């Protein structure tokens, strides 16, 4: 039953998901490598302030990309799970609104963190 509530067609949403997924494959691997044994440090050394600060400042662009890709892809996935599980036809826009607000908050905090350091 076609729903007239979805502003843009679902396929654009999925194209976005696929694109971000492909981006994240590279960027997330890079991020995991930074905290992996390949860096020669044990896990506790990896979490030190200086090392984390150095990474974030040095690879600011990469982590920015990872932040946006992960948040948008992840929350979109959460939206899919929610509209499937709650399947509320009339109140579907509420779910969309909540997801968008959450996305805005996370992106704001993340972007601030990246800019501030």
């Amino acid at each position, binding site marked *: 039953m076609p*729903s007239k509530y979805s502003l843009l*067609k*679902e396929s654009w949403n*999925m*194209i976005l998901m696929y694109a971000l997924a492909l981006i994240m494959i590279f960027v997330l691997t890079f991020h995991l490598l930074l905290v992996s044994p390949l860096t020669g440090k044990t896990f506790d050394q990896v979490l030190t302030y200086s090392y984390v600060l150095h990474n974030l400042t040095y690879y600011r662009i990469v982590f920015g990309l990872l932040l946006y890709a992960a948040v948008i892809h992840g929350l979109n996935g959460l939206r899919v799970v929610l509209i*499937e*599980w709650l399947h509320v036809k009339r109140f*579907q826009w509420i779910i969309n609104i909540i997801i968008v607000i959450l996305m805005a908050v996370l992106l704001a905090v993340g972007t601030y963190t990246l800019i501030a350091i």
Partner: protein
Amino acid sequence: MKVRIRRFDGQKEWWQDYEVDAKPSDTVLDILNRIREKHDHTLAFRQSCQMGSCGSCGMVINGLPALACQTRISELKTESIRLEPLYNYKVIKDLVVDLTDFVNKHRSVKPWMIRKNPQELEEAPMEFKVTPDQNLTFVQFDYCIMCGLCLAACPTVAIDPLFLGPQALAQAYRYIADPRDEGFEERIEILDDSHGVWRCHFAGACSYVCPKGVDPAKAIQYLKKEVLKYRLLHKKKVSVKPAELIQKPPPANAPKPPPFDFKIEGGE
């Protein structure tokens, strides 16, 4: 053979056990008929063709949706049979489920031949020219007997009743893949919706339980590819044209019936 059936008479539900003699070559439907005729006349279940081509007797046998008329006892390899109505449907009585929702979803994806010029569907001097390979691109999905097992197995249908369901999507793809059909633009609005084709996450359970090998999971993934191709590349599908009329006199050695004994009007 011990048979445990999920009963429901409109108000209360309960498990009922029967003890029936059964030959290994019997099918579950034979057992059910034997129970109804010998033990309990109130048992309600659907049946019609008894050869697996009409789709009435879909039910859950030992936890898996299957057709009762073609599941042989020897295949089940268990001492007892557990029969339940199909998952994800409203139960009306015993093993009979309500298919109105299933049927409406099928209808909502416009599963019929659509041509730009509807006159071509009204009268047919000649058939469309479809080679055997073109025929092969869609005929697999035309084997669907509408038994409803795939919706019983699908995880998305289990949580989202608004989801169109593997059957409707596979039938939409059957007509989209048909070289004679030109209705893709009309159908994409319905399919490309928040409860349409994108709610399928390829769990493949529909193809696993399909008794006719229709493989709806494959149809839906191809359908997704078509939708993406349409959105991104805006590719137009080219459909076949009707064959041209052949006016050739019959060959000389054509077999002939004996001459008429009476004069008939309009006889060549």
